[in-house]
Structure formats: C-alpha cells, structure tokens
C-alpha cells in the first residue's frame, strides 16, 4: 500500500538518516531499490530495541549515541547475500588456471588469499574446500586465507561455520557437503579442519587493520557496486597496496576497474581477472616474486 504523502516524506527523512549512518560507517550507498526494502530489513532491529516505527528509530539515532544500536542498524542494512561457489566459472578458472600458475611461480611455497567483503564466508569456505580437495598438490605449502567484512554479524556467522539447509544447497555439491560439513541441529557446520584454514576478521576497507603484506589472489566480488566512484578508487588502491606483480584480483560480474584509477589492469591471461599494474613492469622478467 502506498504511504500517504506525509508518511512518505517522513519515511524518506528517516531513510536519509539511516542511509547516512550506513555510509558513514561502511562507505556503502543505499540504492533506491535497497532503500525501499529498508523497513523490512530493519524490522528485527525495531523489535529488539522496542521501536514502533522507523521514524522512532531514526529520531533516537539522532538524539543519542548508542554504539550497540548503530551496530545493529548497520548489520541489518548491509546486504549479506552470498552462496557457495557463487559464479561457478570463476571458481573453475581459479582451480584450473590461477592456482596452478601461482603454484608454478611461488618459490617460497606460500599461498596467500584475501576474500575482501566476505559476507558470511561462503566464498572463503569454497576456496578452502577446493584447496583441501586438491591437498596432494598443495603438500608442503603454507596456505593463508584472510576473509574480512564490515559486518560483525556476518563475520560471527562466518567464523562459526554454521549454515542453514538452504545455504548449503546453494552452490555446494553434495560430495563436498558430506565431506566437509556435519549436521548441527537443523543446520550444517563446516568441520574444524576447514574452519581452521580461514582467518575471519571484522574489518573496514576504508580503515583496514587485518590485511598485511601482499596476497597472491584477491577477491572483492560484489562489493564495489555499493560504493561511490571515489570510494571504489580508494578500495582498489588498498587492494593494489596488498598486491605484487603476480597477484590476481577478481571482482563480481558487472564490476570493473576501468575508470577507477590505474592500480589494476585487465589480466592478460585470466579472463575477467585483473592484474596489478606492477605486472606490466615484471612480465618480461620471468619469475614473479612477492616483495613483502
């Protein structure tokens, strides 16, 4: 039912306050489509904190500082949609092309992966599953998977490794479900071996603490689309600082580095992947080494 004109104006006012909070805390901009789903997303927060309407919530946020309420609002407004092996072709390319290349080139037998904006962790778990299924090839390698997200709720869920029946049916092959997950009440839980492979950290891409040194594979998929062009550039600069000449960056379908600065270029070998600009300086030089 459409809101009466005065209701619509009040809702838009509240929406502006709430989207302003989201942008200030995360850099994400609410598109019109997401703004109209705001009320549904915030319903559990209204209930938990005893607010009748979204206007009451917005008024309280303006009146007093309540970090817990801020956090709950931000967590509710973030889009935590994720699934295992999302975009199968990307995971096939990682498995068949990118990882073999890294194995050939890395002299110190260390593989470092960063899943930036990992949401509830399915992407990181998918990578861990592929690596463990291919354990023989990675024997003697040190594997580090860092997975970061701004949402405390998403990171807590990711760290727990607990996924609903619906979650594990989206993208996860039944063989991997049997091998790497255990029933956990009505849900499923990633087994400890898999959970130990991933370092989940709550982190902000605009004030990063978690990443250190350089990563061979960086995934920042379906994250940039929520940012303004300036902020996209800032994220790519951050990712660039944590890349070396052999690093590969993967973005979401529909996301690009083009027009977002010169930190990355379309990768010459991996379709849809991006190479650090340092690659161009090194590509004639043989083996690619990490500096840090």
């Amino acid at each position, binding site marked *: 039912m459409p809101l009466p004109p005065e209701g619509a104006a009040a809702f838009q006012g509240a929406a502006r306050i709430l989207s302003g909070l989201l942008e200030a805390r995360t850099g994400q901009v609410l598109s019109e489509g997401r703004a109209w789903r705001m009320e549904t997303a915030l319903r559990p927060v209204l209930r938990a904190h005893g607010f009748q309407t979204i206007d009451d919530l917005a008024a309280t946020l303006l009146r007093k500082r309540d970090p817990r309420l801020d956090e709950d609002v931000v967590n509710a407004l973030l889009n935590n949609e994720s*699934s295992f092996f999302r975009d*199968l072709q990307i995971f096939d390319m990682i498995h068949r092309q990118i990882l073999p290349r890294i194995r050939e080139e890395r002299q110190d037998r260390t593989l470092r992966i960063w899943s930036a904006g990992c949401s509830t962790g399915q992407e990181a778990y998918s990578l861990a599953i592929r690596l463990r299924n291919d354990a023989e090839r990675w024997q003697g390698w040190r594997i580090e998977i860092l997975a970061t997200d701004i949402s405390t709720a998403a990171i807590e869920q990711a760290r727990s490794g607990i996924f609903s029946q619906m979650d594990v*049916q*989206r993208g996860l*092959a*039944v063989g991997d*479900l*049997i091998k790497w997950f*255990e029933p956990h009440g009505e849900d499923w839980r990633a087994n400890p071996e898999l959970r130990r492979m991933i370092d989940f950290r709550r982190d902000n891409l605009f004030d990063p603490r978690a990443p250190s040194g350089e990563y061979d594979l960086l995934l920042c998929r379906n994250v940039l689309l929520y940012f303004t062009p300036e902020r996209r550039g800032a994220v790519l600069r951050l990712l660039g600082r944590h890349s070396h000449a052999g690093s590969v960056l993967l973005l979401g379908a529909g996301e690009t580095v083009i027009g977002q600065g010169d930190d990355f270029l379309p990768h010459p070998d991996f379709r849809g992947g991006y190479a650090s600009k340092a690659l161009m300086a090194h590509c004639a030089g043989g083996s690619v080494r990490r500096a840090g």
Partner: protein
Amino acid sequence: MKNCLVVDDSKVIRKVARHILESLDLTVSEAVDGQDALTQCEASPPDVVLLDWNMPVMSGMEFLQALSSAKMAARPKIIFCTTENGISHIKAAVEAGADEYVMKPFDRETLESKLAIVGVI
C-alpha cells in the same frame, strides 16, 4: 532443449518443480512413482531425473538400483529431491549413484544450483 523427468507421487511437488524447471528452459515430463519413471526412462531417457525418495509401487532408491541394470543409450543425471534430510540418507543416495541431493523444501535457486553442478544447465 534439455529435458527433466520429475518423479514424485505428490501432484503439488510435480507442479512446483515443473514451474521452476520450465523457467530454467528445460522441458519437463512427470512420473508418479519409480516404476513409471523407469518405463519412461527406457522409452526415452531424459537428461536429468529429479527423484523423490518415498513413493508407492517403487521408491526412489529402488528406481536407482533398477536404472543401473536398465538398457539405456545414456544414463541420466540423478538428483534426489526428498524430505529425507539426514546425513545417512544423503550418503546412501550418493553411494547408490545419485549425482546430487536436494533437501525439501527447495526453491528455484537451489534447483538451479544443483542443475548447474551436474552440468545440465
């Protein structure tokens, strides 16, 4: 266009599955139990079978066993789709030759994902 045989004794489930599968550009035929499915598979094997577990006349597991000795040009991919959600059932189905497993209730995204995993779409 690839085709899917939906095997379920529930008319409602067949209807829901048909609706989703057709929206994924598959042609759909239906069977009410394992025996009906076996007859249809022998006459014209589909690309994929969406298979319920508990059915009268012939169960999903009995169908799977019968299918392995049936004379067919090409074996269809088998996706169990059942309310039997325990890990022992899932393991038994995979050991019996199922390619994938859907735990009911299911939605479009789940079916789409499983069909992609078995390479039908």
